[in-house]
C-alpha cells in the first residue's frame, strides 16, 4: 500500500509544480512584423515603447516570409501590424483580405505616391518610404575590366557586359519583379520581353533574393547588379567599392508599406503604432540607422545621402495593376517561358 501512496504523492507533486508554473500577465502591447533592416526595427521598437509605454513585440521577417506567415495564421492572427517591406506583398495581403482598411488622419501630409498606394488598396495599406530601382557596380572591377559604367537600360545590352550582370529571379524576388513590371511599363510588353531576352545573354546569374546581386557586386563576384539603389550605401559604409546609378530612360520604385492585420488582437495599440509610424519624428529612424529610402511624410527631414528623387526619371508606375496576383503570375510565367528557358 505504501507504493500506492507514493504514486499518489508523486502525481500530486507533479500537479502542484505544474499549477505553480502557470502565470498570467497583462500589459498593453502590440505585435509587429518588421520587414526592414534590423537596426531600424530595433530603434522603432525602443523609441515607441519608451514614448508610449506600449510594449512592442517585434519579429523580423522578409516581406515574402511575412506574407506567408499572415496567410498561414489567417484563422487566428497573432500579428497586429506589418511594418515595411516592398509594397507588392502588402497589396497582395489587401487583395486576400488579410489586412483591414484604415484611413489615417495624417494621410494628406504624405507624398502623392504614398497616398496613391493607400487609395489603390482600398486604404488597407499605406506607403511609408520609397526607393528607386537602378544599377549597382563595383568600381574596382569596372576599372580593372575596363568597362564603362552603365547609365541606361540600353547600356546593359552591350556585349562587353556578358556574364557580368546579376539580377534576382522574378519568380522568387520582388525586386526583380519590379524590374520586369518597370520594363513592361517603360517599353510596352512585347518590346520589354525582347529587351529581357537580350539582357539574358549578359546575365551571369539570376540570384534568388533581391539583395543578392548588390552583395555579389560588393564582394567582387560580379561587376554590375540591378537592384534598389538604397541598398548600395549600406555596403559602401562597410568599406566595399560600390556605387549606384539610375537608368536614364526612367525607372520604377518600390513603395515600402505598412498594414494593420485583420483580426488584430491589440487593435487600439496597433492603430497608435500605425499613426506614430507616419509621423515625421518616427520616419527619421531609417536614415538614423543608415537606410536611405525616401520617407513618405513630406515634413520628414531628408538625409543628404537619400537619392534625390527630383533628379531621377520615374515612370508612372501602376501599382494597382502590376501589384495584382493575376498580372504578376502572368508576367512571371511569361518570363519563365520566353526568357529563362533560352540558352545563354
Amino acid at each position, binding site marked *: 500500500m505504501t507504493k*500506492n501512496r507514493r*504514486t*499518489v504523492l508523486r*502525481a500530486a507533486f507533479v*500537479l502542484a509544480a*505544474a*499549477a505553480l*508554473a*502557470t502565470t*498570467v*500577465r497583462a500589459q498593453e502591447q502590440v505585435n509587429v512584423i518588421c520587414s526592414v*533592416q*534590423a537596426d531600424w526595427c530595433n530603434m522603432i521598437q525602443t523609441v515607441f515603447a519608451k514614448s508610449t509605454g506600449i510594449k512592442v*513585440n517585434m*519579429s*523580423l521577417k*522578409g516581406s*515574402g*516570409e511575412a*506574407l*506567408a*506567415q499572415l*496567410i*498561414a*495564421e489567417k*484563422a*487566428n492572427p*497573432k500579428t497586429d501590424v506589418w511594418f515595411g517591406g516592398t509594397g*507588392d*506583398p502588402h497589396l*497582395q495581403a489587401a487583395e486576400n483580405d488579410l489586412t483591414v482598411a484604415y484611413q489615417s488622419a495624417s494621410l494628406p501630409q504624405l507624398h502623392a505616391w504614398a497616398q496613391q498606394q493607400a487609395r489603390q488598396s482600398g486604404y488597407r495599406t499605406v506607403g511609408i518610404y520609397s526607393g528607386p530601382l537602378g544599377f549597382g557596380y563595383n568600381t574596382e572591377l569596372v576599372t580593372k575590366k575596363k568597362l564603362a559604367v552603365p547609365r541606361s537600360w540600353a547600356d546593359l545590352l552591350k556585349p562587353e557586359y556578358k556574364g557580368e550582370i546579376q539580377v534576382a*529571379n*522574378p*519568380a*522568387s*524576388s*520582388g525586386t*526583380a*519583379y519590379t524590374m520586369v513590371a518597370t520594363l513592361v511599363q517603360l517599353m510596352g510588353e512585347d518590346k520589354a520581353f525582347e529587351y529581357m531576352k537580350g539582357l539574358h545573354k549578359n546575365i*551571369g*546569374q*539570376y540570384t*534568388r533574393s533581391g539583395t543578392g546581386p548588390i*552583395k555579389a557586386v*560588393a*564582394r*567582387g*563576384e*560580379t561587376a554590375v547588379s540591378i537592384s534598389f539603389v538604397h541598398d548600395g550605401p*549600406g555596403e559602401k559604409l*562597410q*568599406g*566595399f567599392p560600390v556605387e549606384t546609378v539610375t537608368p536614364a530612360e526612367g525607372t520604377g520604385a518600390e513603395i515600402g508599406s505598412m498594414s494593420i492585420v485583420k483580426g488584430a488582437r491589440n487593435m487600439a495599440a496597433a492603430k497608435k503604432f500605425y499613426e506614430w509610424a507616419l509621423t515625421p519624428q518616427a520616419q527619421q529612424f531609417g536614415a538614423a540607422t543608415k537606410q536611405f529610402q525616401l520617407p513618405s511624410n513630406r515634413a520628414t527631414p531628408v538625409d543628404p545621402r537619400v537619392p534625390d528623387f527630383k533628379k531621377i526619371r520615374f515612370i508612372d508606375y501602376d501599382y494597382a495593376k502590376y501589384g495584382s*496576383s493575376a498580372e*504578376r503570375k502572368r508576367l*512571371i510565367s511569361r518570363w*519563365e517561358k520566353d526568357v529563362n*528557358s*533560352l*540558352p545563354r
Partner: protein
Amino acid sequence: MTAARHVGIDRDRRVVAGWLVFGTAAFILLPWYLAAGDDATGMLQAIRHGRPWLLSAAIGFGVAFAGLLATTRRRQGLGLAAGAGLALVVLLGSGFAIGADQPGIGLGGALTLLALLMLLGAGSARLGAFRGDLFTACAVVLCSALLLLFVALPVAKALSGAFLDEAGHASLAALAERIGNERTWGLGCLAGGVRCGVAWNTLFLALLTATGTTLLGTLIALVAERGDARLKKPLNLLALLPIITPPFVVGLGLILLFGRAGIVNQLLESAFGITPTRWFYGLFGVWLAQLFAFTPIAFMIVRGVVAGISPSLEEAAQTLRADRRKAFFTVTLPLLKPGLYNAFLVGFIESIADFGNPIIVGGQFSVLSTDVFFAIVGAQYDQGRAASLALILSAFALAVFWAQQRLLGKANFTTLTGKGDGGLPTRLPPGLQRLCLAAVLPWLAFTVVVYVFAFVGGFVQTWGRDYTPTLRHFITAFDIQRGNTDVGGGWLFAGTAWNSLFTTLKLAAAAAPVCAGLGLLIAWLIARTEFRGRGLFEFGALLAFAIPGTVLGVSYILAFNVPPFELTGTGLVIVVCFVFRNLPVGVRAGSAAFRQIDRSLDEASTMLRAHTSQTLRRVVLPLLRPALAAALVYCFVRSMTTVSAVVFLVTAENELATTYIIGRVGNGDYGVALAYCTVLIVLMSLAVALIQRLVGERALGRRTVVLAAT
C-alpha cells in the same frame, strides 16, 4: 510462474491506478484551457461554463475505474479501453470541431489527455494486444499519439494544399499539372539543353552526396576505431565541428576560398593568368558543401557500428587462416552493413532536405528544397506548388526508406551477445589503412582551413575586405557591463545577442533529452516488438526529417495556430518542432544499435522476472550508451542550428540564435554573424563534451592492449 505472473499483474494494476488518480486530479484541479483570465478546471468548465462535453473525461475515468475493479482480465481491459477510448474520441472530436471558438488546451486538458492515452494503452494490453505487456502497449499508444499529432497532422495539413486548385477546390488536375510539368521533370540537360528539372537535380545531388558521405564517413570511422590510435581524438573532435556549425558558415567559407573573388581563384589568376569565373557555384559547390556538412553524421553512425562489432568474429576468421585483408572484406565489412545503409539513408535525406547550402552556393542550380522555399516566400505565393514539390520530396524519402528496408531485410547483424568477448579489435589491413589515411588527412586539413577562415571573420573589420583585427563584433553581440550599483549592481548583459543566446540554449536543452529519449524508445519498439502497422509507425518517425524545414514550419503554424492545440507564439512550439524535426536521428542511431544487440540479453532479463521497463533501464540502456550520446548530442546541436523550420515560429520573446544570425547575414553584417558563430561553436563543443562525459562510453567486456601488456 503463476506467482510471478500474479506479482506482475499486481504491479501493473498499481501503475494503472496511479494514472487514473493522476488524470482525475488533473481534470478536477488544473485549469483546462490556456487563456488569460479563464483558469476554471475541466470539472468547472463542464458544470458551470456550459461545456458539458468535457464531462466525458469524468465518465471515461469512471468507466475505467469500474474496469480496474473487475475480476477477469478481459473485463478489466474492456472497461479501461472503452472508458478511455470514448473520452478521447469525444474530447478530441469536440475540440477539433469547435476550432477557433474556444481557448487552446492548457495544462489540465493536456495531462487529462495523457492519462487517458495511458489508460487506453493499459486497456489494450489487458485485452491481449502487444502480448499483454503494459509497458509496450503504453509506449506504442503514446508514441503513436505524439507522431499523429505532431508529424502526421501538420504534414497532412500542409501537403493537402497540393490537391487544391487556385480557387481552393479539390482538383487532381491541378496536382497533375504541378507535379508533372517540365520545370520539375524536364530532361533538357541530357539533350544539351539549358537545365534539367528540379526533381532530377535533387535526386542526382542526393545520390552523389549520400555516396560520398557514406564512403568518407566509413573511412574516417575505420581510421578512428581500427587505425592509427593517435588520430582517434582529433578525428572525433574535428568530425563534430561541421555539425555544430551554423548552416551557412561552411558555405560562406567555401565561397571565400573558391568564389570568383576567393583566394583560390586569385592565386590561379596571379600564377597562371586564368581569369576568375564562377565555376564553383552550382552542383559541384553544393555537393562539396554537403559532403563537408554531412560526412560527420555518417561518421558518427558508422563509428558506433564499428565499435560494436565483436572482435572475436574477426579473430575466428584469422584463426581459420584468413589474412587481415580477407577477414576485413568477408567478416568486418558485411557486419558494417546496417551502419552503411543507415548512413546512406541519412545522407540522402539530409541532402534532399538541405536548404542552407544550395541557397548559398547553388547559383542557378535549383533543388526541390529551395524551390519549395521560394514558392512560399517568393514573389508568387503559391502554396499549392510548394506542397506538390514537398510531396515529391517525401516520395523520394519513402523510396529510399523502402529500399533500405528491403536491403537490410531480416539479415542478422548481432554481435553483442550476453557472452563476454575477449577479442582484440583487429587493425586495418595495410592497403586499406593507406587508402583511409589518403582520404582522411586531406579532409582534416580542409576542415581546418575553412574553420580558420570562419574564425578569422569574427575578428576582422570586414570579412573579405578589410582585415584589420578587431573585437568590435564581439562587443556588439556580447557586451557585458557593470550594472548601476544603485539598482543592485551586478552584471548587465548589454550585448544584442544575449537574449537570443539564452533562449536558444534553454529551448535546445529542453528539446534534446525528450528527442533522444523518444527516439530511442521508438527505435526499441521498432526493433524489439511486433505489432500491426509497425512499418507505418517507423515511416512516421522518419517523415519530419524528409519534409523541407520551411514546409514543416508553415505546417506547424497551420496546425497549431488554432485551438484545441494552440501553441504558436510560445517557446513550446519551438521545442516541439526541435524534437520532432530531429527525432529521426535518435531513431536511426537506436535502430542501428539494436540490430547489434542480441535479443537473448533482453530475454535473460525477462526470465529473471524483470519487467519490461526494468529490462530497458538496466540492460538495454547501458548497452545503448554510444547511441544515446549520439542522439543527445545530435538533437542538441541540431536544435541550436535549425533555421528554416523555425523561421515562422520564432517570436519577439523567443528569438533564436540562428534567426538572429540570419538577420545579420541578411544585412551583410558578417562580422557579428561570424563572431556569434564562434561563440556558438565553443559553447556547443562544451555541451557535447559534457554530454559525452555524463553519458559515458559503453563498457564492453573487451581487453585493451594496455591491459593485455600488464
